[in-house]
């Protein structure tokens, strides 16, 4: 299980400072100071100098504001902020590569390092099936244009002097959606991207960035608008390992939310509807509530498109139930819901990371909050949606004869799934698809370690069952 990295820490620091100033109403004047706070004079720079680091932080902030950092390069902060405040947006993609932060990591796969001893046997060259290794100036050299990347030289070098280098972003992406332009800078192929968010944490330079609704939500909150928080089921223990939903409800009301709904009540509707659909369907059914999974089928394996369930996801069910005088804010673990929200009746999406930054900015410790009953309580079967296998359990619970249906699940999309899925679909009647390992509790924008969330979720479900 992956632990948090410096990349997430920097992102969260920026989000926390932004929300603090937005809540206090001083963002317009103080937005320019944030990059200096992140990279103070005394700090060890990541790049050539702290000024370069600050430039990149400033670009990140503009992307959070949904403004094109290139267009705003020579625009003053006050003007930039005013444009944001007046509702201007450059409609950036949800995920994009910040070119200035991209290291343009080497692409060629095999390298001879200094450990090469120029040995007499040179098994690297001897075993190369294409004869593309020569010995030059006392070191083996691979002709990168001719190399077929078989890896035999790596295996045969007695000094382990040949290494394989992959671009971390390409490695992280399960659908081959990261390409390279002429300058060697990473590019996202949006025709393939499923918004799983792996590249966000996969890039060790933090060059992949996401836009955010956070500041807009804070603005609505401080202006006293009626906002309803929709809590995705994986929210249990996200903001404190010592508290769950009743304490969080108090915290949300403290920062200005009007109502708090547990999405689990809508998730139970999805589960029931999906069960009916499965009973009525002759063919195979693939679940529909994880948007990255749905995008995966649509973009990568469109042959299975017809198998995707027509049942709306819990978020879409909630959107359909929206009252005219409220704004709906979905709070969840992933990036792809930002896309799905645009296809549903949802006003804003906050990730757990963004909300936790807001709480940190307000100095609110959820575990110290009193308990408040949410305005809409969930069904335990809806809460099951948070973990891998849980959606299936909920659907089975609504089936008249669950034993008649064979089920299986995809617990995290990986690059090998393309080959496996056909057989999987053949063998069973229902597949639960989750893009992230462990399901939603392992989402790319979660805060709490999934191992802990899993336990806390089980306790929570036990209690309300």
């Amino acid at each position: 299980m992956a632990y948090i990295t410096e990349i997430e820490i920097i992102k969260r620091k920026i989000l926390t400072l932004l929300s603090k100033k937005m809540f206090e109403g001083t963002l317009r004047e103080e937005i320019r100071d944030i990059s200096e706070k992140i990279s103070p004079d005394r700090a060890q720079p990541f790049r050539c100098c702290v000024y370069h680091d600050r430039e990149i932080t400033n670009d990140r902030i503009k992307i959070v504001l949904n403004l094109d950092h290139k267009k705003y390069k020579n625009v003053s902060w006050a003007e930039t902020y005013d444009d944001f405040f007046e509702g201007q947006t450059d409609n950036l993609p949800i995920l994009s590569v910040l070119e200035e932060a991209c290291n343009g990591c080497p692409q060629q796969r095999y390298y001879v390092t200094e450990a090469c001893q120029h040995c007499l046997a040179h098994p690297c060259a001897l075993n190369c099936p294409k004869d593309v290794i020569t010995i030059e100036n006392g070191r083996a050299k691979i002709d990168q244009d001719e190399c077929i990347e078989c890896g035999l030289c790596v295996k045969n070098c007695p000094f382990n002097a040949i290494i394989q280098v992959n671009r971390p972003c390409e490695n992280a992406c399960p659908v081959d959606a990261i390409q390279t332009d002429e300058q060697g800078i990473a590019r996202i192929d949006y025709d393939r991207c499923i918004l799983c968010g792996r590249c966000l944490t996969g890039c060790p330079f933090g060059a992949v960035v996401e836009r955010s609704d956070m500041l807009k939500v804070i603005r609505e909150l401080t202006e006293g608008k009626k906002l309803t928080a929709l809590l995705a089921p994986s929210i249990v223990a996200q903001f404190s390992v010592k508290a769950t939903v009743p304490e969080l409800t108090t915290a949300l009301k403290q920062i200005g939310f009007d109502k708090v709904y547990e999405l689990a009540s809508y998730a139970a509707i999805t589960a029931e509807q999906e069960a009916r659909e499965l009973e009525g369907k002759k063919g195979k059914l693939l679940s529909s509530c994880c948007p990255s999974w749905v995008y995966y089928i649509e973009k990568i394996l469109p042959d299975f498109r017809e198998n995707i369930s027509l049942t709306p996801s819990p978020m879409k069910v909630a959107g359909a139930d929206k009252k005219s005088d409220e704004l709906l804010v979905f709070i969840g673990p992933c990036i792809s819901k930002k896309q799905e929200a645009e296809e549903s009746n949802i006003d804003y999406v906050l990730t757990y990371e963004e909300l936790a930054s807001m709480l940190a900015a307000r100095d609110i410790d959820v575990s110290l909050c009193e308990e408040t009953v949410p305005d809409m309580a969930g069904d335990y079967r809806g809460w099951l949606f948070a973990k891998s296998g849980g959606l299936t359990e909920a659907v089975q619970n609504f089936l008249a004869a669950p034993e008649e249906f064979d089920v299986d699940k995809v617990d995290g999309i990986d690059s090998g799934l393309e080959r496996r899925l056909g057989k999987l679909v053949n063998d069973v009647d229902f597949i639960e698809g989750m893009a992230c390992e462990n399901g939603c509790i392992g989402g790319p924008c979660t805060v709490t370690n999934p191992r802990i969330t899993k336990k806390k979720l089980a306790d929570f479900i036990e209690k309300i069952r």
Partner: protein
Amino acid sequence: MKIRICLGTCCHLMGGSDLYSYFEEHCEKNGRDFELETPSCLDYCNRADYEAPIVEVDGEIYDRVTVEKFKKILEQG
């Protein structure tokens, strides 16, 4: 050894739950004499000279604690 992993909002956000998870998984039952507390904000996160997440071991404060660093601290103690 008395260990206090700060689980205030700021430390939690910067990776406190990873430390807590690591501790639960690897240290709790290995026979060594560990005593764990998970306090709320220890009031270091607001100070310019410290950075979250904070861990206190036998009265000594460590900041910017990663899981790797935490392992080392526990081994040495």
